């Protein structure tokens, strides 16, 4: 019994594997936020007037908003004037071949365990890497261009496709949506833009790798994905951040718009620095992700594996406007040490015959708190709609917490909503069974946890699934960093 607790404690007290700081110079503006800072950001990026107006409008709304306090999180006071809102690598590389890219940068990616030059290329993945807010390198652009797919940094999209940006920016997540979305809208520095034209199945998985680097910089990236009628795209997002003592703020916005019969799959593996064992440092991750199924029979699915960040506040949502549209949310959230996560989804059924599924697997260890929060709302007009939610929590050790806060609102008689939630501890019998077959407790926990999260991991694209599985094992097994 005690032995097992000890091992549990050992395996759950690992250190962050990706803690390093790469030292290429960056171009920053001074700390603080006011209209001038926003104008500076917009000017540095040579943005058209509509973008500046969008930012200023958001900023003015933000000033009037309170920081949300309803989540099951203890959020230390954040001084928004003590943050640098813009930082870009000084030498902005624009290379055709990877050989020309700053070797430090390549090294950074190597340390991240996702070498740009080999693995992703072999896997056929186009990578749009965001280091500290400015997009550095995009591969496979030509292949995509042939199909008419636009996949570029947000800044580039603003310059080259201003009409598309203007049309869709803020459609899923209006500037006034919430405190962090408003902040992002005011100051976002870069991100990715992705446009799939009518009838096109994007021939490869699109992938972005986010990383927070410079000290004291907040990362505010913005992603916009538009899928036209009958198109399909699968989008991957991965994140890591270097290890620092102070907390770093991250407030991203992701918007997805799916038109008639379009399908967008969005997968995230989030592994920002969670802080050390004593809860010092780590990323505050306040993310707004929302997709609108505007077209009939469209589909948006979110899959996330969340193992990092000191605080996670994140509810990837789907608004099902089109008849027969489908929303999905699959999540594994692991918290350890002093981490706190309050994450879940909103499924808003507006169109007829809309369907949504929620699968959430929370795993808490150490002194962490892990909450699921979700809303399923079926409007009176959303007749014959269906939702099924399954929210399970697994507890490793007696000092962590697992919480479930679903909200279900149904307004018509022909819809069916089912919600189930369970909380339990990791099975001692299962660990013993593995032990009896010669498998150590550490490995057994890794195995059982992965088995527990299987349903969600299976939804990830192949190469991501392997990475996520390793991440889960590392998060809990402490096989060192």
């Amino acid at each position, binding site marked *: 019994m005690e032995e097992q607790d000890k091992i549990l404690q050992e395996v759950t007290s690992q250190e962050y594997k990706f803690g390093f700081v790469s030292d290429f110079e960056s171009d920053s503006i001074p700390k603080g936020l006011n209209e001038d800072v926003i104008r500076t950001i917009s000017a540095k990026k040579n943005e058209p007037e509509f973008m500046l107006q969008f930012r200023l409008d958001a900023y003015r709304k933000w000033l009037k908003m309170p920081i949300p306090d309803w989540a099951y999180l203890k959020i230390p006071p954040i001084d928004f004037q003590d943050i640098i809102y813009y930082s870009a690598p000084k030498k902005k590389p624009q290379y055709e071949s990877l050989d020309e890219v700053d070797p430090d940068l390549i090294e950074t990616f190597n340390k991240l365990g996702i070498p740009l030059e080999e693995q992703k290329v072999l896997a056929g993945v186009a990578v749009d890497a965001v280091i500290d807010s400015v997009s550095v390198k995009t591969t496979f652009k030509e292949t995509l261009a042939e199909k008419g797919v636009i996949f570029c940094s947000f800044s580039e999209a603003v310059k080259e496709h201003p009409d598309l940006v203007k049309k869709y920016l803020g459609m899923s997540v209006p500037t006034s949506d919430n405190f962090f979305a408003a902040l992002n809208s005011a100051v976002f520095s870069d991100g990715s833009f992705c446009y799939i034209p009518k009838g096109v199945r994007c021939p490869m998985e699109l992938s972005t790798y986010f990383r927070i680097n410079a000290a004291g910089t907040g990362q505010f990236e913005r992603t916009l994905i538009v899928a036209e009628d009958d198109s399909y795209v699968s989008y991957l997002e991965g994140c890591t951040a270097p290890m620092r003592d102070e907390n770093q703020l991250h407030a991203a916005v992701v918007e997805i718009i799916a038109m008639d019969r379009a399908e967008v799959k969005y997968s995230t593996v989030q592994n920002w620095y969670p802080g050390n064992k004593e809860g010092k440092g780590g990323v505050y991750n306040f993310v707004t992700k929302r997709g609108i199924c505007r077209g009939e029979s469209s589909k948006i699915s979110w899959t996330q594996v969340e193992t990092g960040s000191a605080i996670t506040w994140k509810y990837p949502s789907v608004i099902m406007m089109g008849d027969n549209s489908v929303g999905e949310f699959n999540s594994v959230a692991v918290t350890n040490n002093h981490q706190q996560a309050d994450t879940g989804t909103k499924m808003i059924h507006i169109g007829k015959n809309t369907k949504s599924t929620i699968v959430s697997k929370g795993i808490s260890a150490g002194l962490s708190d892990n909450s699921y929060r979700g809303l399923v709302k079926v409007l009176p007009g959303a007749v014959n709609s269906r939702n099924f939610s399954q929210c399970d929590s697994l507890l490793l050790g007696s000092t962590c917490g697992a919480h479930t806060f679903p909200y279900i609102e149904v307004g018509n008689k022909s819809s069916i909503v089912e919600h189930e939630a369970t909380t339990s501890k990791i099975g001692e019998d299962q660990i*013993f*069974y593995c032990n*009896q077959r*010669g498998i*150590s407790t550490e490995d057994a926990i890794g*195995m059982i946890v992965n088995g*527990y*999260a*299987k349903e969600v991991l299976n939804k990830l694209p192949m190469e991501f699934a392997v990475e996520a599985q390793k991440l889960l094992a590392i998060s809990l097994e402490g096989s060192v960093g």
Partner: protein
Amino acid sequence: MLTIKNLRVAIEGKEILKGINLEIKAGEVHAIMGPNGSGKSTLGNVLAGKEEYEILDGEIWYEGEDLLELSAEDRARKGLFLGFQYPVEIPGVPMVNFIKTSVNEHRKFKGLEPLTAGEFLKLMREKKELVHLDSQLTNRSVNEGFSGGEKKKNEIFQMAMLEPKLAILDETDSGLDIDALRIVSDGVNALKHPERSTIVITHYQRLLEYIVPDCVHVLYQGKIVKSAGKELALELEEKGYDWLKTHSL
């Protein structure tokens, strides 16, 4: 191979095993019988190293080592195998991964290289045939949704994969159909070896027709009240445990 001296075990403050003495030599097959709740599974679990039991007194020696000093996984790696009465389900963990990890942990312990994928699959195929295990089962999660009999067969299959020195089979015969019973026994017999020993825990002497024991013990209220040759099983089946009560006390 195994020596148990005056073993007393309690769970949640209740004494279950009240002084067990048992000696098993290499190559021997011992059967343990006894009414429900007499402590048979408890004995098996304690030997395998399950932690919630409190050892009040006694010693257990396995191959010259103090068994009680070893962790459950080390006991397993040293060749002690427990076929569970109620094998637990582990959702999401594929059988193949599980058994591969298990086999390679055993090999690592012996200082051997892990099996290559090819070698492993070949071994698995062989052993599956030996116990007539439906090949679909190894593609599923560990024991998940297996029928009672499939779970038992799966235990024997794992035993065949691991080739233990001392196998403890806790009611591996219950829930098996007649053919399966013979297959399981054949499996056990196929592994018979002068260096290997088996403890079969069972309620039925039928199994003992296939796996012929050198010795039959009756566990009753936490004590071994009678030990004799294989004919004891027959006698018990005829007369029931009541007969023993009046005789042995």
